[in-house]
């Protein structure tokens, strides 16, 4: 029974509505005052991840919007589809959104996610899933932010290790960044995104 039902389901599937560009004028539609706050200010252990989006000519992209999605520090999600059950961690939203400024910079305030179990064994190293939308792109670009101080976990991560070229792998790992003395929120990591060119970031087919 299940085989024919399964086939029928696939054949009757509806076509996804196509993606279109976010365009240049998304700011009033998508910018939220609390967009960059994956966790509220003052959350213990919170840090910023900041970076610049560059185009193929190495110029900053001032009309991009970056979104992040991640597990909480225990590696859990507040989501019914997680077979381990939904768990809420403090005021953790898990989601961040930051439109780039005129210098192409984005920034989110977050905490480091825990590792994730892989069905069948192993773990995914702590990481953020990232969506990039910008004028000029018709589809969403998907990438990941890994942490430079998680070397051991990174070495065992099934996604990072699926990329053979170490230079390409390195495009997914943030750099440690120090905040300047005048900044009140600690800057934790820098993660630049290169849409194209010599340093092109690894993007994923999801």
């Amino acid at each position, binding site marked *: 029974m299940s085989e024919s039902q399964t086939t029928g389901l696939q054949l009757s599937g*509806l076509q996804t509505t196509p993606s279109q560009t*976010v365009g240049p004028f998304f700011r009033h*539609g998508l910018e939220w005052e609390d967009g960059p706050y994956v966790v509220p200010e003052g959350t213990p252990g919170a840090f910023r991840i900041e970076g610049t989006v560059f185009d193929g000519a190495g110029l900053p992209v001032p009309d991009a919007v970056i979104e992040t999605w991640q597990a909480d520090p225990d590696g859990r999600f507040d989501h019914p589809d997680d077979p381990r059950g939904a768990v809420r961690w403090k005021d953790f939203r898990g989601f961040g959104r930051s439109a780039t400024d005129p210098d192409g910079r984005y920034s989110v305030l977050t905490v480091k996610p825990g590792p994730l179990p892989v069905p069948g064994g192993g773990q995914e190293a702590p990481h953020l899933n990232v969506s990039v939308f910008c004028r*000029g792109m018709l589809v969403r670009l998907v990438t990941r932010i890994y942490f430079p101080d998680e070397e051991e976990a990174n070495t065992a991560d099934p996604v990072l290790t699926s990329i053979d070229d170490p230079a390409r792998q390195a495009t997914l790992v943030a750099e440690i960044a120090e905040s300047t003395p005048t900044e009140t929120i600690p800057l934790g990591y820098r993660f630049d995104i290169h849409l194209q060119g010599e340093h092109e970031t690894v993007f994923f087919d999801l």
Partner: protein
Amino acid sequence: MPTSRPHTYRPDTPSHPPVSWPDYKSNVGRAPHKPFVLLPQRLGEITGPLLGEGRVGPNDNDLTLGHDGEPQGQRIIVSGRVLDGDGRPVAGTLLEVWQANAAGRYRHDADRHPAPLDPNFTGVGRIITDSDGRYSFTTIQPGAYPWRNHDNAWRPAHIHFSLFGTAFTQRLITQMYFEGDPLFAQDPIFNSVRDPKAREAMVAKFDLATTVPEWALGYQWDIVLRGKNPTPLEEEDDDE
């Protein structure tokens, strides 16, 4: 030993525009050149932000409100359903919409189109779908606007839509167009969708049933988010 796995979402690449689409000029310097790396769908991909009521204010589903007076232009009501690829309603999900005013001008510093701003129109809305996946909002028919992509280039009238569904995998930003727009043929963004059926699915239909007498024209537009693979009840461990 067989393990139970969470469901994943089936591929939908043919519905979407290609990564590289040089007819759209600003795509050329921004589209990645290197092949994408396959990202298996695991816990972080089948989950996603569940943004609901907290993100929506009382008048967010009526873009004609919230100002001192009424905006200029043809009042319209856009409604439809948000479904997944198996026709199941996506309930309680956030839609964000933004658009130009009736003259084709956005409330945005970078919009240099010499058409008037409307003091009574901002052009931003937010809606949550009901338990049947239905959404509805009232707005003004947006105008077409010129851009510099090619000689005498005009964008067909459209409303920008952003949706989350229930998973990172389902995230979608798209545009809704209007039936019968004469500008479709010359628009490289609309035509970046190569499958004619998928292209047609971006076009809202005029609907007399949702047209409110002596008030507003009705348009119907359903949105389909990526569908799930059949549930893998038992599967051998094959992660290597």
